[in-house]
């Protein structure tokens, strides 16, 4: 069909259409030539079989508890027998998470108050302690609680802790230091 036989508007439209058809059907020189060969199929099949037989990578944590990494630091533990009440751990703690209340230094009556909610688990207190009475075991990390009161932990003799909790030191205590 002769294009010149058409009305002027249709002629322009036909030309534009022609141009568009040429533009879209001409292959771009940069376009990658996609070919699939046997190696690709083999690799795909390998991946598929692997995905079918390997175990899921997901840990089953709330149902199955795995051990923490060897050097993981969790809740601080305190050993009364070794402590001299020097207070270096209190000085070094960057988060002010530790208090040592001295009821009687000679009789070794200390109360160790530890705020789990402030602790950054840096382990500085453990490194500082001369008597090695502090430790951060690796497996005590399930600390989530519904109430913040649970995060204030007292270590020490039961009677001493009670007297500190009551807000008073024992009458026979020689020295007392408020936190």
């Amino acid at each position, binding site marked *: 069909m002769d294009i010149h036989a058409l009305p002027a508007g249709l002629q322009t439209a036909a030309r534009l259409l022609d141009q568009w058809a040429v533009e879209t059907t001409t292959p771009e020189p940069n376009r990658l030539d996609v070919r699939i060969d046997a190696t690709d199929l083999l690799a795909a099949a390998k991946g598929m079989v692997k995905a079918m037989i390997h175990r899921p990578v997901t*840990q089953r*944590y*709330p149902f199955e508890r795995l051990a923490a990494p060897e050097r993981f630091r969790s809740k601080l533990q305190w050993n009364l027998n070794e402590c001299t009440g020097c207070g270096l751990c209190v000085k070094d703690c960057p*988060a002010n998470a530790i208090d040592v209340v001295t009821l009687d230094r000679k009789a070794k009556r200390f109360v160790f108050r530890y705020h789990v909610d402030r602790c950054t*688990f840096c382990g500085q207190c453990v490194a500082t302690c001369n008597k090695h009475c502090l430790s951060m075991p690796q497996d005590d990390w*399930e*600390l*989530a609680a519904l109430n913040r009161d649970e995060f204030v932990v007292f270590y020490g003799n039961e009677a001493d802790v009670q007297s500190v909790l009551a807000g008073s030191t024992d009458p026979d205590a020689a020295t007392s230091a408020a936190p």
Partner: protein
Amino acid sequence: MWENVLEQIKTWARVNSPWAIHYNSGSCNGCDIEILATLTPRYDAERLGVKLQGSPRHADVLICTGSVTRQSRERLIRVYEQMPEPKFVVAVGACALSGGVFRGCYNIMGGIDEVIPVDVFVPGCPPRPEAILDGIVKLLTEIKTGEALAAQAQRRRIPLSLPEMGAV
């Protein structure tokens, strides 16, 4: 009888799909990264139905990290207010619990619970992904037994207090 059944269905739905939104009110990003790790396939919090939402209006659980800075306080309250009832808050990390190493700074309001009511506290700096999962499980257990809702009903009677600027 019908109300009882309806309540059971609601509880079932709440326990099985706690959609979460994460808000960082002044954290160092350590806890945020651990939260993201909790959502990755290795820990896969979606097993428990936890799905991160982009909008507080689609979320049931607000996962908060970081101590609350003065700038962030009003935004935190706004995000909390935008969430539909019932809403639960999980505070993750030492800073979110008490302010952590920033406690007592001039620009820090303190922990999350100074500003909005918190249901579960997860200590750690940062907590392990397992520890965060542990916190989520404790929250879901509380929702299941109905204690969380009871506690919330108690709380709702108290209007959200807006502490004065600088009153730390």
